[in-house]
């Protein structure tokens, strides 16, 4: 179980991460969703040990990883542009991590291994250690064993990503999607205790992306390896995550299951970023004991709010089309074809999806559910 607490980091004088904390539970896939430059990749690199945080801690089963170098953390990392080793074949790329676990001079010493590479609390530890031992045997018979074990594990990993039989190919000869699969197999093969994906599908086209996303979800599900998936693409995030963490200006602004996050973005930024509905600015007009009255361009709405607001305060409201709710009359400005629906832009900037395109210029009445998002 990975826990990070209060991680902070600056980049060229600007705060990049400001006290980020979260936990990844066993078998769980979480997704860090945020705009480009929000510090997602940096966070991954900090977890991997490739960069030190300025403040905060990275813990595995409550043991601080700060003194553990990246190569001893046993975390897999998949890069956006794959970072395959161009001088090695597909097989050798996938086998790389396995070989590193076998021959490393450091790991020949059990004491060091126990000390530096504490995985006793890993539920898979025993099985894993046995497997490593099989790989590490060095006598004549053992070498043969370790070789077949290595080949077996590479083959398994390649099969997992649907690349059986690609072992002898040069990685430079593969297509983008194939390269991404090799990168995935390479990260999977050593059976890391945590997998991290840094915009892994960013460079691929849409259909390939969807296909790979499905496969990836299936693999993560099957292997039960906890994973952190970093992306700026909410569709990817919703497709793969058990839990989504919205990262904005170095802070996690919303955390929850895809449905929770979608249904209740809880902030104007999150709602806008996700494109949940219409975010409208308003001014608190009247405060009563449990409800507020907020004045907007589209009328005055009365609602309950999680936050306390004073009169005259600027707030943001979320207007979601809903069967029950306040009706707003507006003129149709524009209707754009959007797959099986129409994206209709109304006067004042409200946008709704409709099954049939209304006549441009006509006035329609739409029911909205109005929610309070807090400060504008």
């Amino acid at each position, binding site marked *: 179980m990975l826990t990070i607490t209060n991680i902070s980091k600056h980049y060229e004088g600007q705060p990049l991460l400001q006290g980020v904390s979260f936990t990844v539970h066993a078998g769980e896939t979480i997704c860090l969703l945020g705009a480009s430059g929000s510090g997602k990749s940096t966070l991954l690199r900090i977890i991997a040990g490739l960069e030190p945080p300025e403040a905060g801690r990275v813990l595995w089963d409550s043991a601080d990883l700060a003194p553990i170098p*990246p*190569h001893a953390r046993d975390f897999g990392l998949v890069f956006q542009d794959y970072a395959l080793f161009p001088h090695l074949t597909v097989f050798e790329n996938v086998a790389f991590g396995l070989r590193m676990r076998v021959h490393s001079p450091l790991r020949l010493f059990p004491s060091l291994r126990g000390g530096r590479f504490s995985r006793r609390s890993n539920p898979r530890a025993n099985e894993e250690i046995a497997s490593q031992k099989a790989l590490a045997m060095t006598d004549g018979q053992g070498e043969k064993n370790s070789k077949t074990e290595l080949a077996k594990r590479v083959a398994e990993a390649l099969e997992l990503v649907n690349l059986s039989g690609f072992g002898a190919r040069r990685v430079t000869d593969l297509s983008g999607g194939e390269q991404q699969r090799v990168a995935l197999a*390479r990260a999977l093969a050593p059976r890391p205790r945590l997998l991290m994906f840094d915009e892994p599908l960013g460079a691929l086209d849409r259909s390939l992306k969807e296909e790979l996303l499905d496969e990836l979800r299936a693999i993560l599900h099957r292997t039960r390896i906890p994973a952190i998936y970093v992306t700026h693409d909410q569709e990817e995030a919703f497709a793969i995550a058990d839990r989504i963490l919205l990262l904005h200006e170095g802070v996690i602004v919303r955390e929850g299951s895809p449905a929770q996050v979608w249904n209740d973005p809880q902030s104007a930024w999150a709602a806008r970023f996700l494109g949940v509905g219409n975010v409208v600015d308003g001014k608190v007009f009247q405060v009563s004991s449990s409800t507020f009255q907020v004045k907007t361009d589209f009328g005055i709405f009365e609602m309950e709010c999680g936050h306390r607001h004073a009169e005259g305060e600027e707030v943001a409201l979320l207007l979601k089309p809903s069967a029950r709710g306040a009706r707003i009359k507006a003129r149709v400005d524009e209707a754009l074809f959007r797959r099986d629906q129409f994206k209709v832009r109304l006067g004042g900037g409200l946008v709704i999806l409709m099954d049939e395109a209304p006549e441009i210029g006509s006035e329609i009445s739409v029911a909205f559910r109005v929610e309070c998002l807090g400060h504008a």
Partner: protein
Amino acid sequence: MRQRFSESASQRVSDSTPRRFADSLIRLPSAVRSLHSAFFLLPSLLFLLLFFFLPLARILSLSLDASVLTSANFQTASHVLRFTLYQAALSTLLTFLLGLPSAFLFARFDFRGKPLLRALTAVPFMLPTVVVAAGFNALLGPRGWLTLLLSSLRNTQHATADALPFVGTLTAILLAHVFYNTSIVIRIVGAALTHLDPRLEQAARTLGADSFRVWTRLTLPLLRGPLLASGLLVFLFDFSSFGVILLLGGPQFSTLETEIYIQAMRLLNLPMAALLSIIQLLCTLAVSILYERVVARTLVPTTPKPSTARPPKSLRERAFVFGLSFLLFTFFVLPLISIPLRSLARTEADRGQRDEVQYGLTFDYYSELFVNRRHSVFYVPPAEAARNSLTYAIATVLLSLALGFPAAAALKRQTVFSKFIDPFLILPLGASAVTLGLGYLITFNQPLIIGHWSLITSPLIVPLAHTVIALPFVIRVLQPALASIPERLRHAAASLGASPLRVWQTVDWPIVSRALLAASTFAFTVSLGEFGAASLLARPDLPTLPLAIARFLSQPGGLNYGQAMAMSTILMLVTLLGILLIEKIRLSGSEEF
């Protein structure tokens, strides 16, 4: 001065080959084009035929003489060859020992004084060998600063017995070679390392490779091409090193180059010298071919953002950066700074001087350069050697530009003919200066014109040899520059109503002038510092500056040593100025030379 610079230029030429090839197809029938370029190439080809290939052929025929091919001679040759290979391999190894960490330092870390340090490590690359030899002599030699320090510590009044054994040892040779060639490793490997995608290393680390294995399993294999290329280049320079071995090595360290010199000039055994020359040529040819192949196949995965350098963070990194940059600074500055310091310091009496010796700061060694002492080792004032060198260098510049410019212009568009001829123009790079000198000795020692004129005793012979050495560089510098002149700009200017002369003035001249300046500076510094050919060819009454330095270095007395240092200082400063000029031209232009 050594032979450098060729690779990047050669790679550059091929970059836009297809486009230029297409251009040439459109503009003229290729047969006419070939004739056209042949006309411009003719002077260079004739020149090389007469002053490179003919002497080479004479060497070959002389070496095939039955009297040379004896087992005793082969034994000597094989001994010399073995030592040459041994010292070159050892030097290359040591160069890598310093060069690899330095390449890593420059590629991966940002630190204060980095640009200065980088420039500093590149300086020896172009320095004349006599200056390097003088530098190490002034630092570690029997009359160097270290000896003076040890003597004053032991209170023994400047005794050479206090000197650490340096001059005349293998250590001196190796150290000078490392001093010379580390910048090759830094430049080639460092560039590859800078451009190496850092995510590959990070991927390897997350896959469980510790930093040692990241190096052995990933970085080094990925850098195989640049490593091999720089290794071969360093080996080549160490293999054909002459001045360093002659001036810093002792009699027991005989390489092919110095043995050619000794056999020819001391033992007058020209056939044996020719045999050694042929062996030397074959070896350099083999290494050069290997090098071309390695460079052609080099593939390094690059990052779009080349700068992966950052300030050192951990204590270990800081210690590495500080320690290595301090070591590099010391290693590259001390020998160079020792020369001017020694040229201004009187630390021993002049020979035969019996009055009170004024130890300390003195400018006498400089003013004495202009004094003709009847009993000085030359019967001319040393300043005259500087004048000779200057004259030779200017003649070399004029001659190599006169030959090289038309050739570069002809080669700027690739035709079948120029493609075939190109290697012949570059071939002289492979022959050592000593071999060239030997070839001239055995080819031009007959009177050319009836009477008393022969080329070998003419003052022309030195600039001729220097032109053969400089010409390939001049062509390689001019060719890409001329090729880079954009045709479209020229057409555009013409269509706007500019006369051909105006077009040339506004479009061509700015590019051409910079290339000409760089090529001239290069030819100038090559000639100014050249030692090998001059030591075989220079007339006794017209010695060059490097020859004068070499001779003054071994003479007794403070005055001779001081004058050797003064001359070295002058030569070093002039060369540094040349390097600066070339760098400035290189930096200010879009085209890389």
